């Protein structure tokens, strides 16, 4: 019931936020913050009562009883569609990340939304609800439903409150995700129909479909449907082109949620669905996926280097970083997968913070063009220092979360394919190049003394402190996170290797 409640609180909170606008323009944001924090506290309290958390049994992927939580009721029995939610270590991490970054996102757009605040916060909360659903749903029909639920409010956030070119960006985002989502729907339906044909049972449940017997040729095409949907979301090269536009045009909170959370649903989908449902096909496809990952790492970094728009640069850095996730997933060994999970969490924080800084700059300077910035450290030393922190985090400084992630991914990849690991390691150099260029062009260089700019205030510093602490803890003591995801990752690997009869 807990998992349903988590989602319902956000959905209802959104409705409340809409109506609270009548009480004043600054009420909805407080409502939204309260709702997210209540949700977070509710989750933490509930988690603290789960005894398994202490020992963290390895969940058997196909047996829901071994998971931390499992909830299932009939929904449309005729087709075997259930409201089935479940939580294991991986989804728990993602849910926690979602709620923390959700609060950050509300804070990030505290002052820059000038119209229809109520509807804005509602969209934000509904997106979060959709994301939570995606991370917890294990009925494929329900999963697809939530996949769409998180898309539509996001579309509105970009289309209504975005920047100058918002219509184009919103439409591009919508078409990319929608079209790829439809491919996934086709794959889901085909999977269910084939399963029905084999067993005579209608079911959309992940746990049942894991054991579906599919001919190799068919499995490959179905896997491709899932793969495209998730890689578009990730985004992986060459399906990434919606991202720079959407991130750049979205309002700050939108960018934070997009980069921090929404991209993770793609990675999560790959780990949870694409590979375990079709292990054999994924194994055959892995070399292609790995090359796409490497291409994303390098291509994203080069394009980031060429940008003059602050937000666009950060957006392309996301393409580069998420390339590491793709590498981690398809290297499919414990090191690389743990690295991928780590990257999902760490990238969530570091990029969300950079987008928040970009939003603050836009609010103060009314431009994102770095050619009009320079020397901002002088005007805003606190923001400068914080930007420096997140930039060195994003270029992978050891001691911060992103390093642990990239190191583990590359180490894992090195066991699988040395050449690819060497090429991907070039990402460390190109990453440094664009990150430092970003710092140089915006905060360093000749300052403009006439500029009167307000430095970060308490609210911003508090938000940033949360993310900085998170990254430092992830960087020097990542073991708790690794321990939470370890059983899941290990059991997924052993599950897929049983099916394929060998290691992937």
């Amino acid at each position: 019931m807990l998992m349903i409640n988590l989602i319902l609180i956000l959905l209802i909170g959104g409705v409340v936020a809409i109506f609270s606008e009548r009480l004043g323009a600054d009420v909805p944001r407080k409502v939204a913050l309260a709702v997210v924090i209540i949700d977070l506290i509710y989750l933490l309290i509930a988690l603290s009562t789960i005894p398994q958390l202490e020992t963290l049994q390895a969940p058997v992927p196909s047996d829901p009883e071994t998971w931390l939580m499992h909830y299932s009721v009939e929904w449309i029995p005729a087709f075997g569609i259930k409201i089935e939610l479940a939580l294991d270590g991986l989804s728990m991490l993602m849910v926690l990340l979602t709620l923390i970054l959700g609060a950050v996102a509300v804070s990030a757009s505290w002052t820059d939304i000038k119209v229809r605040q109520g509807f804005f916060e509602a969209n934000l909360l509904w997106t979060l609800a959709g994301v939570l659903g995606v991370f917890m749903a294990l009925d494929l029909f329900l999963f697809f439903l939530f996949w769409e639920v998180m898309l539509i409010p996001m579309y509105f956030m970009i289309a209504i409150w975005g920047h100058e070119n918002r219509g184009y960006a919103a439409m591009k985002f919508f078409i990319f995700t929608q079209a790829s989502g439809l491919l996934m729907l086709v794959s889901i339906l085909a999977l269910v129909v084939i399963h029905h044909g084999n067993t005579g049972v209608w079911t959309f449940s992940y746990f049942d479909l894991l054991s579906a017997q599919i001919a190799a040729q068919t499995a490959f095409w179905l896997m491709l449907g899932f793969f495209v949907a998730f890689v578009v979301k990730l985004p992986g090269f060459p399906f990434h082109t919606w991202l720079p536009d959407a991130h750049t045009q979205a309002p700050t909170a939108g960018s934070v949620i997009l980069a921090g959370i929404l991209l993770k649903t793609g990675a999560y989908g790959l780990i949870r669905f694409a590979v375990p449902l079709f292990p054999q096909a994924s194994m055959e496809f892995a070399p292609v996926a790995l090359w796409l990952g490497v291409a994303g790492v390098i291509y994203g970094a080069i394009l980031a280097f060429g940008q003059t728009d602050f937000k666009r640069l950060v957006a392309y850095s996301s393409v580069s970083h998420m390339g590491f996730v793709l590498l981690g997933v398809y290297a499919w060994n414990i090191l690389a997968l743990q690295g991928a999970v780590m990257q999902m969490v760490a990238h969530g924080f570091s990029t969300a913070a950079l987008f928040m800084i970009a939003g603050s700059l836009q609010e103060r300077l009314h431009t994102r063009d770095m050619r009009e910035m320079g020397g901002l450290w002088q005007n805003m030393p606190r923001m400068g220092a914080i930007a420096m922190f997140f930039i060195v985090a994003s270029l992978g400084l050891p001691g911060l979360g992103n390093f642990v992630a990239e190191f583990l991914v590359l180490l894992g990849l090195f066991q699988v394919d040395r050449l690819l690991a060497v090429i991907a390691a070039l990402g460390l150099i190109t990453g440094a190049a664009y990150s430092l260029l970003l710092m140089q062009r915006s905060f360093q260089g000749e300052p403009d003394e006439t500029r009167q700019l307000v430095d970060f205030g308490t609210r911003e510093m508090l938000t940033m402190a949360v993310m900085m602490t998170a990254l430092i803890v992830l960087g020097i003591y990542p073991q708790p996170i690794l321990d939470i995801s370890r059983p899941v990752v290990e059991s997924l690997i052993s599950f897929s290797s049983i099916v394929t009869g060998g290691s992937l």
Partner: protein
Amino acid sequence: MRELIGLIPLIPLLSSATLMLFAGHLSRFAIGLLGVGSVGIAAILTAKMGIDFLGNPEVFKVTLWTWMQVGTFSSDVAFYFDGLTLVMMSVITGVGFLIHLFSTEFMEEDVSYARYFAYLNMFVAAMLILVMADNLLLLYLGWEGVGVCSYLLVGFWYQNSANGYAARKAFIVTRIGDTLMALGLFLLFTELGTLDIQALGDAAKDKWQVGDSMPLIACLLILGGAVGKSAQLPLHTWLPDAMAGPTPVSALIHAATMVTAGVYLIARTHELYLFAPIAMIAVALVGLATSLMAAFTALTQHDIKRILAYSTISQIGYMFLALGVGAWTAGIFHLMTHAFFKALLFLGSGAIIHCLHHEHNIFKMGGLRTRMPVTFWSFMIGSAALAALPMTSGFFSKDQILLQAYQVDGIGPWLWFGGLVGALLTAVYSFRLVFVVFFGQVNTEPDKDTGWRMVIPLSLLCILAMMGGWIIIPVTQVFPLAVFEHPAHWVEYVSIAVPIVGVIIAYLIFLGGQLKVDVFTNSFVMQKLQQFWFSGWRIDWLYDQLLVRPYYGLARALKLEPVDNFYRLVVTISQTFNQWLSAGQSGQMRRYITSMVFGLIVLLAILVRAS
């Protein structure tokens, strides 16, 4: 006491964090006290550990917590303490403390006083972690940490874009080396199953044979990292530019400690290098080539800090030469003495720059012998040690390197001869500096005097630079004993004589004027050669053409997202179809009706015929 070893890096780190968080609330005195005091405490703790160790030379390891443990990979935050660690820690905290003290005066008028000490303390912490780490991953943390601190400090005066460029160059060039090193770590883990430095040595003994290709590749990758950090060929180009930072920073980071991290790394992993003789030769050749290249370049420079920068590159080349010929102890010994005399020279030049309103050009100085006597003697002693004149600290260490290089089978005498040429050039350029800056007529009057916070560090470093050669570094347990048979006496005599000859040449050319070289240097070939050397053998230009420009070009070419063209094509096709189809929608009812009627007639006709 041993458990407290963790405090040594922690105290500067905490001080750094405090300075960053509460910069606005601290007085300048408090900032200085925190900045200098934290390193001072670290130095005292190190001294205490050192005394204990010398009394009871027992190697130990302190594990603080498990950093990450994934599958079979595991890495702890753990510190390893042996004689080599002790030497490095002493240099870092000792010389570091003196440089911090010097900085309080040098940076006195800077608005970002707190930021400066925050960075500098963070550097000390990262450097300590680097040398204390018991596994290569933690070492890598320190390694990258010092890189970032170096970046921050080189670009400390960020208002000037040139400094920012130098800082970025320093970081990215060393990052190339770091990436090679990271690949080396991947390879070592994949091959040997651990990154623990001691365990690596044992595993290598089990799994590797001398001369295998795996140890060769791994050692070359590690050498790549060392070459980047220690500014050796071909990744040395960042160091001269890194002089954009405040001079005490150059003394601490770019002379005494960080740039020698590569030497430390190779010395630390020497057990692996023993399996790869070719890699050892590569180390020696890289070192020798770098030391000669940099020495020629130093001859032609006229920025005081760039001369010292190239001299640092050159001296680290000697250390690499030592490592390459298996003279580990001599290499580390030279690292230590170099830290003393090069820090002394940099601080001395800092004092000059400080008192001469930020003048860097040596030809605009001159005659400072009487104006700044303390600095003059610092420079005399520092240069004597750098030139390895007898009885100075540099003499003992460099002499050992040259003599051991001579011993190597086959190429030994050649290495020795190359080293001698370098030593000659070193003596010439270092005393050229002294004669031009301190003798002759006064070109710029100093407007300040050096205060006690400058004089004390200079004096102490003078003593170390003179007497440092008598220190016996406690590394006998760490390194295998070198089989050392004394070479023929003439070899030693020549080694001693060459620097003296160099000083005399410098005197005759730059001070006495007895040696007229104008005709020679003004000849066309020499002019060209001088320009070539002055530009650092045009290596910067080469990289610019080969790497930097193409990368910029690539970024510019791809900026507008070529992948999007494909999606734009899809859009264009849909739009074309849309145009065609929407032409049919005229909005005129009568047309619709007419077409409907004719359509129906056709359909009916078909139906009728079909039935």
